């Protein structure tokens, strides 16, 4: 297919519309038996017309065809990206002596453990949004006062603006309306003490490491769910990790009873 040489120049030149030639239609043009009518055509999504393009799209998704043209991007650490490995280095946060040999691993560690950390109780949260909710609900005395009179507990689902009187009501809402799990780990009610609770035998619940995130493990066995809200803490910090204030708090703090296993 040969294109006129001036075409590329036209593309490179400025915008503009052609001055249209005069339109002059003869009624005989559309007279039977001829039936042509100039009209734009639309195709709905499932139309067979799209088959070839769709198949190509899916070949690309399945990675059978080559990738789209590369625009050189500035990698954050080019060597590390290529090799995945750099000489071992330690986390720079005071008190954390985790060691890494890949920048990606470090990035994830940093964001998980040191990213959204509550300055009051040193708990880490996956997002700023959850951290903000935590600080408000756990450490803001004004919040406590206000919540006695109005609905203050905001739904944690992004985009939902519902508010509730108690954190229990909020949890119910999240379970019913948003199909969240009843034991959603980032929605822990604040309690001053957790009652010592019996663990069901054969409990294979999860353990949490260190103090960074609250993990509530529930008995997996068939014991009925306890009536009130209970929390079971288990702390076991491997020797390769040391924490500063956070770790110490886990063992020495009197705020919460911990149940050692």
């Amino acid at each position: 297919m040969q294109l006129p040489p001036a075409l590329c120049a036209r593309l490179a030149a400025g915008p503009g519309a052609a001055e249209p030639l005069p339109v002059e239609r003869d009624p005989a043009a559309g007279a039977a038996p001829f039936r042509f009518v100039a009209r734009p055509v639309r195709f709905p999504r499932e139309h067979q017309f799209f088959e070839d393009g769709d198949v190509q799209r899916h070949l690309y998704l399945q990675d059978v065809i080559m990738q789209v043209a590369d625009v050189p991007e500035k990698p954050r650490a080019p060597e590390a990206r290529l090799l995945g490995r750099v000489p071992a280095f330690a986390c720079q946060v005071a008190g954390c002596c985790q060691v890494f040999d890949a920048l990606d691993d470090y990035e994830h560690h940093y964001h998980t453990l040191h990213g959204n950390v509550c300055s009051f109780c040193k708990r880490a949260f996956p997002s700023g949004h959850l951290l903000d909710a935590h600080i408000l609900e756990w450490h803001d005395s004004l919040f406590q006062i206000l919540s006695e009179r109005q609905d203050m507990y905001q739904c944690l689902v992004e985009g939902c603006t519902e508010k509730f009187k108690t954190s229990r009501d909020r949890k119910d809402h999240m379970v019913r309306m948003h199909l969240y799990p009843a034991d959603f780990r980032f929605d822990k009610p604040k309690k001053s003490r957790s009652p010592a609770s019996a663990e069901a035998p054969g409990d294979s619940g999860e353990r949490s490491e260190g103090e960074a995130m609250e993990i509530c493990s529930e008995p997996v066995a068939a014991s009925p769910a306890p009536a009130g809200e209970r929390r079971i803490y288990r702390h076991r910090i491997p020797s390769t990790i040391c924490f500063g204030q956070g770790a110490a708090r886990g063992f020495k703090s009197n705020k919460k009873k911990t149940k050692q296993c």
Partner: protein
Amino acid sequence: MWSRRQGRLRPTVCGVEELRRRRREREAALRKARREQQLVSKRLLRNDAPEEAGEGCVAAILGETEVQQFLRQAQRGTEEKEREGALVSLRRGLQHPETQQTFIRLEGSMRTLVGLLTSNQALLQLEAARCLHELSHSEQSTVAEACLPATSYLLTYLSSHSSDFIELCLYTLGNLIVESEAVRRQLLPQGIVPALAACIQSPHVAVLEALGYALSQLLQAEEAPEKIIPSSILASTLPQHMLQMLQPGPKLNPGVAVEFAWCLHYIICSQVSNPLLIGHGALSTLGLLLLDLAGAVQKTEDAGLELLACPVLRCLSNLLTEAAVETVGGQMQLRDERVVAALFILLQFFFQKQPSLLPEGLWLLNNLTANSPSFCTSLLSLDLIEPLLQLLPVSNVVSVMVLTVLCNVAEKGPAYCQRLWPGPLLPALLHTLAFSDTEVVGQSLELLHLLFLYQPEAVQVFLQQSGLQALERHQEEAQLQDRVYALQQTALQG
């Protein structure tokens, strides 16, 4: 950039023939799936470091005891490296469908995995997420649906700050989304659309590409036009952001643009609220992108740019059918004749690299020229009639569309037909009259009729070049008879 994922777990002893054969097979399978309206594809992210892909790179299938063992080790191991190693072994085993089945049948396995996913051990989290990702990629519904307990956490992590982790969660979610309506019925109330909308602010290209993928899977769903697009998507800020991702310039990333162009296509062809998109400047953004593509196509050899061109063409073509196009600002947003130039450059590119996309390009040309004297004039003044005619031999579908575009031009009257004749048009028509395809011939007859009407001198030449014999060939054909007869009369009287 998806290119990062290139060298993953494929057996290295794979010749070019083998690859081609595989591609043909996949293509046939996809066509069949599409005809049955079951077109589902998932993405798999495997970032194995070189040493892992060394000897014994093909992982073994794990039995029930081994899966249990690895899970227990990951959960309760003392050394962190040990725990991580256990999850890595599990993840490798999960590359096998059999291991996946074993895993989901094991009681408490998903619960344990979710616990590891939400632990505060960053590397365990990542490995657990990778295990989930393998599961999400399964072709078996039971396996993918077993991942449902993890979705609220995957969504929560979308607002975290670790870009690699977010990327992984997005691809996993994208795979789950496409699995079944049951899965989407859980994800939608869990707030997947707002969560995705929040992600679009990310500065990381890899995250944006993953986001585009997940979104495109959501929008491709069968129930999307009714249940997802009107309520969630159009109510959010996603459409504006999507268009921003498509604006040409130094920040345009082709991999990201491909995903969002497809997203836009699914929205537009659902015809839910296209005037809204036009109001956001979709036509001008896409038009400029088309110009950009034409420029890129001229420079790069084989870049897969047709993957981006295809949805852009579709979006433009469908948008042009909206009545709103005429009323916004009182005139068409798209008037720049560079669009026609760009389109022809792309048509040439398709002709050489991907002929199956020619109909889509010609579709846009039809929609541009149908009601636009200006664009029809551009076709003439930019000397594009002859290149257009060169496409006639490609296929019947292409022939019909070329002839339709020519009819669009011819029907505008004598001023236009004068520029169509003399020239290569008449010989081309005599040639297409020799085709056996009824639609091609029918469209040729329509064009002839217009040509004879507005340019009567052409009749003589037609007769001299055995036009009547060409017509006679079709006078028995039911769908063509009347028109053949009418033309014969015109020719004989002229």
